[in-house]
């Protein structure tokens, strides 16, 4: 279930990148940042949060274990 939610979150963020709703708006946030630029700045922060979620809840720790298990065998061969 957790994996499915994370895949959905990745897909949702990918879709949210195509922000057609701000396409033609020259509105200035805080009086000087174009809304299209501001949106994608916030999008980048959202991407960092998503990466934190992936690292926290979907870290491929089995790869680390495999490497650890392989090491002693290599040492024995040596």
């Amino acid at each position, binding site marked *: 279930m957790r994996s499915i939610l994370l895949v959905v979150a990745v897909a949702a*963020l*990918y879709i949210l990148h195509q922000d057609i709703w701000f396409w033609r708006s*020259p509105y200035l946030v805080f009086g000087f940042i174009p809304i299209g630029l501001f949106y*994608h*700045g916030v999008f*980048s922060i959202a991407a960092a949060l998503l*990466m934190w979620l992936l690292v926290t809840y979907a870290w491929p720790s089995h790869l680390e274990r495999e490497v650890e298990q*392989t090491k002693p065998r290599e040492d024995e061969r040596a």
Partner: protein
Amino acid sequence: MIPAIVVFIYLATVLYIGIFAFRRSSGREKAEDYFLASRSLGPFVFLFSLFGTNMTAFAILGSSGHAFSNGIVTFGLMASSSGLVIPLTIFLIGTRVWALGKKYGFMTPVQMFRDRWECSHIGTAIFVVQAVLLVPYIIIGIMGGGTTLYTISGGAVPYWFGGAIVALVVMGYVFFGGMRGTAWVNTFQTVLFLCFGAAALIVIGVGMGGFTTAAQAMQKSPLAYLLTRERISPYYFFSYTFIPLSAIAFPHILIFCLTAQKMSQFKKTVIFYPLCILAIWLPCVFLGVMANRVADVPEIRAKQEARRVLATQGKNMAPEQRDELREQSGGDDVIMLLLQRYAPLWLAGLLGAGIMAAVMASDSQILALSTMFTEDVFAFYGGKRRFGEAVQVQTGRLFIIIITLVAYAVALRAPETIFELAIQYAFSGYAALSPLLVAALFWKGSTKWGALAVTVWTAFAVVAVAVFQAAVPAPAPGPATVVWSLGGAEVLTRTPGGTAVFGFMPVVPMVIVSALLMWLVSLATQKPARSTVARYF
């Protein structure tokens, strides 16, 4: 001249760090130590060097130049899409490649492909395509170095000399320092250019009397389109999300993934990557757009005039005249012109050093090419067995000299702007190679023939796009030239900035066809032995 002197001091510092500061090995050198720093990089160096290696001249000069001409769209096109796709691919692919490298001793992607698909010469074909596509990336660094030193010195350091100095400095610390030197230089450079964005924003903002007046004046001017994306097709915008797939397929990025001491070191890199991109790109794009409101810098006005003439009279001009105007209107040096105008001399020098830091990211590409040549060709075809590991390292060093000289010679003659050159060839090509990694790591059924099909297709597609763009001149700004239409649909068009296939950039069909070829050809051909597949899944 003071800013140029500060930049020269910076170059000397970089050379010192790369050659001496973190040198460990002495006596007979091991290939793994020279090319991979003995897989021992710590979390801080790994994060900053991996990020720095992916940020070239393109990140500061190309982004601000593109934003100067095209507006805020630049950030969404390359920065925010990269902030999602690149860390995701590092998380999914980089970690797995690291684990395989630790388990089986791989030093290059081709070594992994050869083992995974039980192939030899097909691996060599992949090496050739990877190497050819990497060279433009190295050229970008040298071109950026020449442009930067020329502008910072007010023309006192000619382009050819600036490019030569950058090439020599990079060659020096890569030659002597190998991966360890390169990683530490990249770390130093990344810290410097992470500071650059904020510092440049503050200095130029104060100089311009704040951005509010400039932005609001632009909102009411004919240049208001630069604050929106109204002149950009949503298909074109979507296409750009395919470009960051190239990052993980670049050999220098994948080889960097092998240098981490522990897999946990990927965690910080994955999380902080989007924030690092934000810190560099947002100020550069914003400043590039705002440069259009600077009226008292003659060079910027000349660029705007060239852009205006191209837009109003371009249709009636010869293609060569249009190309000339395009070059004149290019904004790759716009951020340095802003610094010259608004920053005090000593600060302009320091910020110029920040730009140089980004420009000189070609070091890892040079080292990667050398690693690939010595491992995938020299060692694979018996050189290491016959001459030993010390000769292998010396061969790598000789290769570094040759490749730098070739890249410099090409950089002196290449007329394209930094941004276009990078996008059209290297990035699209590597994005099309990314299905190789996905198939090798996630699909048991993939075969060497599928890999060959992807490689041949990528080479063909890159050459086809280059030939097409050389044969059909770019039209003036406005409607694209339709070259092939079918049932009312525009299949192939030549746009002012490149090529479109069904409205998408070529990278979209290139990646999709690559993935399809890998799938279909693998289904029809013999799989590797079970024992081989079992080592990967």
